[in-house]
């Protein structure tokens, strides 16, 4: 009998289900998400509007990135949300059918349907009462899917626009669930990432609205304001959502990337203001330690490391730095001894980096924050795509977001035309007997 046979096979042949392990994650995405492991067809770019450029509004831009398709290297679609909200980060729901995208200035959240037509996302919901529902949380940043809901880490609060902030949960259909404020002594927030195998969640820390909405040149001269950046990471019991440990990581630790190997019990982050690469390692007693691993460029020149991306085999860590427009690639096969294997300037400024699951394609964008971009003088805005062979970046194509009148490109996520093929459309469901 088929069922009995299947179960018996599973019991005696562990390798029978090996593909599940191989598909356990996509680089830098939540481990709870449906992943895209083949050639991506589209990259969705959450883009800040620029006054006087095009319609001037924030928008979701879809770029064709599959060389086998006629739309390769072209803008496939663009969907304005109306107004400028300081478009920043975005994340898929666990089933990848929707993309939630946030505005750091207005704290609005835009929910795009990707499943109906992956080439042409549709805006299906706008959450305008995030601040009220959450009890005064401001600046939704990371959108991190967990089963059936969205976990959102924020940057600020409505009481003083400072760095004290919280994690906020919504159901996938957009209903508010709860707010969890960061603990005393580590109140600042930025990124959130979970390691299910360890039941541990890490959060990092940046700055409040008063700082991130202020022009960078002005901010750097304000010694008091420069004290109001995060210097901590928090280790949480994920299931209980309870803080367990506060780690000292000076200089605004930003993006967090857990290693994905089942015995790889560590994560990386970069500290923006001190230009340091850090590791967070699980110790034998189950607690964690934060270890300074390497300089990122010359810290004296404040290169401002921003986004990082760890390959799915935990081998290469890409680190972008904003001020010098440079990507540095570290070989982190020995995570406590990272080796710099590539340093390459990609533009006048550089922020986000995303790599395909197989690590063969790497995508970069230029914008950090509307009031921080262009501090070096040249406010170029681009998406640049490269091949990666473990040694060198090979240019594939670039999209000039100014020439295309799109705006400031920020976070990137991948889509595939056939990812939802076979999904019943609502009219089909209704028409069936």
């Amino acid at each position, binding site marked *: 009998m088929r069922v009995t046979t299947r179960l018996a096979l599973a019991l005696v042949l562990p390798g029978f289900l090996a593909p599940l392990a191989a598909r356990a994650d996509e680089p830098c995405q939540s481990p709870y998400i449906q992943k895209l492991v083949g050639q991506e067809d589209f990259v969705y770019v959450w883009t800040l509007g620029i006054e006087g450029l095009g319609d001037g509004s924030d928008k979701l831009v879809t770029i064709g990135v599959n060389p086998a398709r006629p739309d390769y290297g072209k803008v496939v679609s663009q969907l304005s949300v109306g107004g400028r909200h300081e478009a920043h980060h975005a994340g898929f729901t666990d089933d990848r059918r929707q993309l939630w995208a946030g505005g750091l200035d207005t704290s609005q959240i835009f929910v795009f349907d990707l499943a109906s037509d992956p080439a042409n996302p549709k805006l299906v919901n706008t959450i305008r009462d995030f601040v009220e529902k959450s009890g005064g949380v401001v600046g939704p940043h990371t959108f991190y899917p967990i089963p059936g809901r969205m976990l959102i880490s924020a940057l600020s609060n409505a009481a003083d626009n400072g760095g004290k902030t919280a994690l906020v949960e919504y159901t996938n259909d957009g209903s508010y669930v709860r707010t969890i404020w960061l603990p005393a002594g580590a109140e600042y927030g930025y990124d959130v990432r979970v390691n299910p195998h360890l039941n541990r969640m890490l959060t990092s820390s940046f700055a409040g609205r008063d700082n991130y909405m202020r022009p960078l040149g002005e901010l750097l001269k304000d010694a008091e304001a420069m004290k109001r950046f995060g210097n901590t990471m928090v280790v949480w019991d994920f299931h*209980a959502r309870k803080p367990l440990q506060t780690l000292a990581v000076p200089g605004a630790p930003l993006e967090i990337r857990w290693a994905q190997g089942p015995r790889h019990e560590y994560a990386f982050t970069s500290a923006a203001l001190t230009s340091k690469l850090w590791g967070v390692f699980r110790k034998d007693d189950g607690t964690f330690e934060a270890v300074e691993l390497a300089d990122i460029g010359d810290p004296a020149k404040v290169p401002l490391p921003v986004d990082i991306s760890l390959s799915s085999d935990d081998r290469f860590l890409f680190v972008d730095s904003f001020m010098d427009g440079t990507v540095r690639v570290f070989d982190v096969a020995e995570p406590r001894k990272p080796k710099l294997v590539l340093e390459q300037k990609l533009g006048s400024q550089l922020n986000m980096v995303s790599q395909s699951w197989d690590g063969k394609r790497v995508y970069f964008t230029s914008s950090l924050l509307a009031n921080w971009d262009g501090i070096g003088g040249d406010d170029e805005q681009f998406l640049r795509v490269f091949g990666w062979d473990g040694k060198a970046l090979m240019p594939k194509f670039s999209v000039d977001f100014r020439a295309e009148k799109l705006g400031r490109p920020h976070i990137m996520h991948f889509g595939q035309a056939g990812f939802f093929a076979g999904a019943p459309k609502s009219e089909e469901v209704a028409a069936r007997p």
Partner: protein
Amino acid sequence: MSAALLLLLALGAAAPRFEPPPPGSYELPPLGRVGAHTLLGSDGAPAPLLALAPGEAALVAFVYLHCPDACPMAHAAMQALDRDLAARPELAGRVTLVTVSFDPARDTPERMEALRRALAPRGRWRFFSAESPSAIDPVLADFGQDALRVAGAGGELQVASHTLKVFLVDSERRIRNVYSSGFLDPRILRNDLLSVLAE
């Protein structure tokens, strides 16, 4: 280590390296309420999907029998929990396990009955199918369970893939937690049940 936990490990999950938080030490806020649905039991007769008395709870897993990887993980986790509950009579009478196929074109009540026999429940563990995709789709939408279907050889729609989700539902039909392959740990399921049942 139980055979079911061994199976979970064989399914690709390394041995969990944590102790779950104790029951009652954390919150499980409601994630919405599901409606009263009627589906086909494994005996072929219509039956309510959830028939919970006050003080009871259920775990609901959506599966399909052609599922190559994730669904066996759900079966294994549910079976581990079934065995665990059987050893805890104070809990066994208050918990219902529910396995629902959302591939009615292929997973008939007879096939679900075969699955039930293969898994050999020791406690309350019910198996459901549906008359047609249109009968199961409102249930999927209500729970927030995605499913991709493709046309089979005969033109009928068959499930091709889904995101594995198991739902903890309290006696008021409120979803209290959702589990996927990354967190389908029988110890977590048990402690969450204990937390909800202690309210």
